[in-house]
């Protein structure tokens, strides 16, 4: 009994202490969050702690990376912060807010660009529904996440590929935003995330030390407690950090340069946008930046880190009227029904817009950004690259920037608040299994594995071109459909030049140099006495044979080059090329030469052949490869309809029973195979684009739409109403969803045209109306004077 009583009392005391402890922490956190009134920034000369709350000794070689939860969270309410706007997107009760830019899950080879958002925005997918586990999500998008969210939440997905034990958790990186140090390097964060060094990413990015090793290369059995791998110091090097001891004082404290208001540069790492083709020198920054403002001047938050986004009805969404004062309208014009200077308008010296001559109906139907933000409307949409979608701003040896996903702006469409606003737009592209009307995306790796070589035509051609080593300033090229293509460093294809002579229709391998194309091997051998010419030709032939003897083509067979009545082949023993007549070759190889002899005649262009399993076959690329490369190389497209049909067939065949239905969503349409195996396009809700309003860059008032003339928008052909919104995607197809802006605005085209035409006579109308008004005024004046005359006569005379 005594024992039970003792245990109960002990547990009660322990629980009491635990509660008291948590209260103490809360109090401590609160202490730092109640603003004292001082506008100075406290100097953060602090000790760093690792994830186990152990103090970091920078001189110790086995030191762990610093943990923001343990270091920053010692004084600041980490839990409250981690529920902020940048971190709560994956929570079940995440606030929706106005649609913002989704994450775009992108795989070029598989032709996938899928908008992902955890907040249920229109035409976006939740990560789990798209097949993205927390691990895959962080791997795909962690580069532009400030940590937190699924990066440190418990992973309940059961993903067998997840390696959280090795990588560690991707904690909220407070310094990603709040560092004022010039050493803060977001590119370092990106690299560490790519290497699965999640727990080390913050330390590397902050520049506290140098992080080496890659968790991604470590065996699954490795644990951070094991430290370095003694058996391998070349490849599977365990992640480690070597602190820069110069940054620490004798007490082991580091000076952490903090900006309470994040610097613009930190925001822009993830929030930069740039129109394609625009040069940096031509880029005018946002007018607010020009005026000396920072992002955080408008986008404010308290300790809960619910950063205000400043759209017009945000206060209503957030049920927090204080955010209304930092919206465009709130800041420039004030907030109706709210007391205090913050709601009076003219905040931070913002000018009060006069909008002279603009009928007020515009303010009911248009957002402020419709006239003031984004690129000027043009007939065709502008392609825009964003930091988060196209990996802008990541520096290093590798080129991180991607052309796709293909985002366009400005689409002037009706927003969620019913007002027309400029939007950015992306059309989803993905492979899916169709069950009735429900689509379930197929994972990119399943697509690429099933498709085999079908989708990698460009890569195949590039592989051959890379194998044909350039000689004498001649670049190996593939000529197809009038295009001259060369291989690039990424094993893709680039257009070599549009100014090359000798380009013919059809397809062929060639060497390009000095603006002229020459055959890879000549059609006839030079006479034996021309030793130099013979040597050059032999060298070239040897190069080609060597290139096609590459292991990459081993499955195709052994290469042969036919010239005249003989052929060249590689002599495996000597490693050199040798020439044999057809007869000698036939005697030796004892193969059916009829096809070859029949095809190749003396003087004919030499051909490349494969010798495999006793048969000689022409080494031509499959027709679909040539067609695909011809149609897509040098364009934004990745593949053709033919390839998509082939992949859809392959997806069906790889299914047990082969009865499943697969589709490809692209360019605003759903593509599927009909009964005869042809690709047909149809409409589907899942093909609709994801759109989100854009707010920056804000142009000066003089450059606003309508600032100079009403016909900026109100004309019979104005891009604002009649600009084309043509869907885009990785597949080259004529079946593309095309709309015009007025359709997305819910406007009547006939009315807008008529209204536009009315502006042709608007000046005349005003003149006539003015004349009519003046005439009435004169008549009134005249008879008014007469009436006055009567009054004066009456008052001035005593006659009755």
């Amino acid at each position: 009994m005594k024992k039970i009583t003792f245990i109960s009392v002990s547990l009660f005391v322990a629980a009491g202490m635990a509660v008291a402890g948590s209260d103490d922490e809360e109090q401590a956190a609160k202490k730092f969050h109640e603003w004292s009134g001082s506008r100075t920034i406290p100097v953060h000369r602090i000790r760093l702690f690792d994830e186990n709350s152990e103090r970091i000794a920078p001189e110790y070689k086995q030191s762990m990376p610093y943990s923001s939860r343990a270091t920053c969270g010692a004084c600041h309410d980490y839990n409250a912060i981690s529920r902020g706007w940048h971190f709560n997107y994956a929570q079940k009760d995440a606030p929706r807010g106005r649609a913002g830019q989704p994450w775009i899950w992108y795989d070029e080879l598989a032709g996938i660009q899928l908008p992902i958002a955890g907040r249920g925005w229109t035409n976006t997918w939740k990560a789990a529904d798209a097949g993205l586990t927390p691990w895959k999500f962080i791997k795909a998008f962690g580069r532009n996440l400030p940590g937190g969210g699924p990066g440190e939440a418990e992973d309940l997905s059961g993903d067998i590929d997840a390696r959280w034990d090795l990588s560690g958790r991707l904690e909220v990186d407070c310094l990603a935003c709040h560092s004022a140090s010039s050493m803060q390097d977001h590119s370092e964060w990106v690299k560490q995330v790519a290497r699965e060094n999640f727990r080390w990413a913050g330390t590397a990015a902050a520049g506290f030390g140098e992080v080496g090793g890659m968790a991604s290369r470590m065996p699954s059995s490795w644990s951070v407690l094991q430290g370095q791998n003694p058996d391998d110091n070349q490849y599977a090097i365990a992640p480690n950090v070597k602190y820069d001891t110069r940054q620490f004082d004798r007490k082991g404290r580091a000076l952490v340069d903090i900006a309470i208001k994040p610097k613009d540069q930190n925001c822009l790492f993830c929030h930069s946008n740039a129109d394609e083709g625009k040069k940096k020198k031509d880029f005018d920054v946002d007018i607010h930046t020009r005026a000396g403002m920072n992002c955080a001047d408008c986008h404010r938050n308290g300790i809960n880190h619910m950063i205000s986004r400043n759209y017009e009805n945000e206060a209503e969404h957030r049920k927090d009227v204080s955010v209304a004062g930092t919206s465009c309208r709130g800041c420039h014009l004030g907030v109706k029904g709210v007391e205090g200077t913050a709601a009076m308008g003219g905040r931070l010296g913002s000018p009060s817009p006069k909008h002279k001559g603009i009928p007020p109906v515009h303010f009911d139907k248009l957002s402020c950004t419709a006239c003031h933000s984004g690129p000027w409307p043009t007939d065709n949409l502008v392609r825009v690259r964003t930091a988060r979608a196209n990996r802008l701003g990541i520096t290093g040896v590798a080129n991180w920037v991607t052309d796709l996903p293909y985002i366009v702006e400005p689409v002037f469409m009706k927003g969620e608040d019913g007002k027309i606003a400029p939007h950015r737009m992306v059309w989803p592209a993905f492979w899916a299994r169709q069950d009735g009307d429900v689509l379930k995306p197929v994972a990119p790796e399943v697509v690429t594995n099933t498709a085999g070589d079908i989708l990698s035509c460009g890569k195949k051609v590039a592989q051959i071109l890379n194998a044909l080593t350039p000689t004498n300033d001649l670049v190996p090229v593939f000529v197809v459909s009038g295009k001259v293509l060369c291989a690039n460093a990424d094993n893709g294809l680039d257009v070599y030049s549009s100014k090359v002579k000798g380009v013919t229709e059809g397809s062929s391998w060639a060497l390009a140099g000095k603006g002229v194309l020459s055959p890879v091997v000549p059609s006839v051998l030079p006479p034996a006495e021309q030793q130099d010419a013979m040597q050059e030709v032999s060298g070239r032939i040897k190069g080609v044979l060597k290139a096609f003897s590459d292991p990459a083509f081993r499955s195709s067979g052994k290469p042969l080059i036919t010239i005249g009545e003989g052929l060249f082949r590689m002599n495996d023993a000597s490693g050199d090329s040798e020439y044999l007549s057809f007869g000698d070759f036939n005697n030796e190889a004892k193969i059916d030469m009829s096809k070859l002899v029949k095809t190749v005649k003396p003087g004919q262009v030499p051909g490349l052949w494969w010798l495999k399993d006793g048969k000689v076959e022409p080494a031509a690329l499959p027709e679909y490869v040539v067609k695909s490369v011809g149609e897509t190389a040098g364009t934004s497209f990745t593949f053709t309809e033919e390839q998509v049909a082939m992949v859809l067939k392959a997806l069906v065949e790889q299914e047990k029973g082969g009865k499943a239905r697969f589709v490809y969503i692209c360019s605003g349409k759903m593509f599927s195979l009909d009964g005869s195996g042809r690709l047909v396009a149809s409409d589907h809700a899942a093909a609709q684009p994801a759109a989100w309003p854009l707010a920056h860059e804000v142009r000066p008032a003089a450059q606003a739409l309508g600032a100079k003339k009403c016909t900026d928008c109100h004309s019979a052909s104005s891009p604002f109403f009649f600009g084309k919104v043509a869907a885009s995607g990785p597949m080259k197809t004529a079946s593309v969803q095309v709309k015009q802006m007025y359709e997305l605005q819910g406007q009547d085209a006939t009315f807008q045209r008529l209204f536009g035409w009315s502006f042709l006579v608007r000046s005349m109308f005003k003149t006539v109306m003015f004349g009519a008004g003046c005439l009435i005024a004169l008549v009134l004046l005249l008879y008014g004077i007469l009436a006055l005359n009567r009054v004066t006569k009456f008052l001035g005379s005593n006659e009755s």
Partner: protein
Amino acid sequence: MIVSVVVAIVVAVMFGKQLAGPVAKNAPRPGRYPLLEGLIAFAMWVSLLVLAGTGFLGAIVPGHPLQGFTTLAHVGFGAMFGVCFALLAVFRAEAYSLAGQDTHGRFSTVQKYCFWIIALCGLALIFSILSAMLRLLGTDGQHVATLVHRYSALVAMLAVIIYAGARKRS
């Protein structure tokens, strides 16, 4: 909008004579160019009825605000009304004059007062909308101009109804 135009034409045709001027046997002498004056009066009444139909429809019938094609018709017929009324004011100002002797005896005193009220309101209607179309007024000014336009139209409409209902001088 189409209904407004049709109704306007029907009303103008049916009640045109009454609205346009004298009906009594011993009718007073009309103006110098009665045909032209009659045509202008007819056009003015048609445009007035369309303006009333399009303008007040939104205020009376929910779901029919002044927008889209209704606005186009309102603006177009507004110009027609402005021009016709200005011309008619020139043609008939003498007949509607309150000063001195009743020049021709065509209109009752009530109608004369109504005319001058309509003329004043017409002036306000024209300049309120014209000022809103020029780069003169800011947003607040635009709102004031809209209010002036709205209430001028209301007063003018009342005056028109009274005018139409008033007995002619025999």
